[in-house]
């Protein structure tokens, strides 16, 4: 019998990250990188107090964690698989830890910071 792969865990994070990267990130880039600097949105829109209270509630915390962490899992998975596609196999385990480790750190650090708000 063939061994069950644990890929579904990484693939689900990859898929979720893909959705976030495709639908939410462009909007966030627009808001933070274009709309605010150009004055399309009033500066108060992202005022410290507002964002702080947003990040204090659980829905806000979850949202922020998702937009920070999930695209990292998406990128980690894509980069790791692309190395394989390109036939780069040297240091495969090292690359695995580097890719998914970055994503894990990018999940744990915001998680701790968000909880402490």
């Amino acid at each position, binding site marked *: *019998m*063939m*061994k*069950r*792969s644990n*890929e*579904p*865990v990484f*693939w*689900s994070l990859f898929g979720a990250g893909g959705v976030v990267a495709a639908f939410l990130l462009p909007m966030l880039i627009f808001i933070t990188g274009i709309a605010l600097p150009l004055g399309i949105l009033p500066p108060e829109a992202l005022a410290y107090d507002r964002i702080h209270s947003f990040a204090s509630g659980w829905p806000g915390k979850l949202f922020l964690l998702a937009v920070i962490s999930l695209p990292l899992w998406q990128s980690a998975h894509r980069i790791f*698989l*692309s190395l*394989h*596609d390109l*036939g780069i196999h040297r240091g495969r385990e090292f690359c695995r830890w580097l890719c998914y480790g970055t994503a894990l750190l990018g999940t744990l650090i915001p998680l701790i910071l968000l909880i402490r708000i």
Partner: protein
Amino acid sequence: MTDIEKTIEIEVMRYHPEQDASPVFKTYRIPYASDQSVLQGLQYIKDYIDGTLSFRWSCRMAICGSCGVMINNQPKLSCKTFLRDYYPGKIRVEALQHLPIERDLVIDATDFINKLESIKPYIVPREARSLEQGEYLQTPEQLARYEQFSSCINCMLCYAACPQYGLKPEFTGPGVLALLHRYNADSRDGARADRMQIVNAEEGVWGCTLVGYCSEVCPKQVDPAAAVNRNKVNSTLDYFLRFLMPGGGESG
């Protein structure tokens, strides 16, 4: 010039593993006609220039799946590819990539056949029916779920296209996974749990990195990449549901 006077060059990979250290290329000049297939070109070489050239073919109409070769580096059915698509350029014909060569353009399909057998490529009846009960009926919707995947002709072009199969021959590969899906998606079939064990493995759908070239080269629009992707979803559900459902998911 009429077609009769025109010629075209075909460069063919020749390899006799017993004698040759590595494959060599030989160039043949053959008469050109706009309605001639590359297969007919190879047949001309065999009949009139060099009878030792070996290649497979049977139906000459893109249904037996035996004439797959690399044509100018792309996996193609030689009976469905025409000289006119390359004329006046040169045509380079090689054995299908990623597969061991028996002789010249003839590849060894053993690995593919073994994988095909492993997925139970036939309907295992979900419920036994006696003759008196009549045939198994299906709605058009139930048919639509698998029909496209039943068009596979086992030509192995997708295996020559798949970089994953080239890197890791243990990978079940696009064509066989598409056929696996064809039976799993059939409302009359009852062997899904067995086949899911293959789907769930690293050698199953998880060997795929979604390159997608398999679907591009498929001469029958089977879209094996879609079958693989759908089964990544199935496998993921199976993976997590086994923790929720007593007795495990459908394949334990």
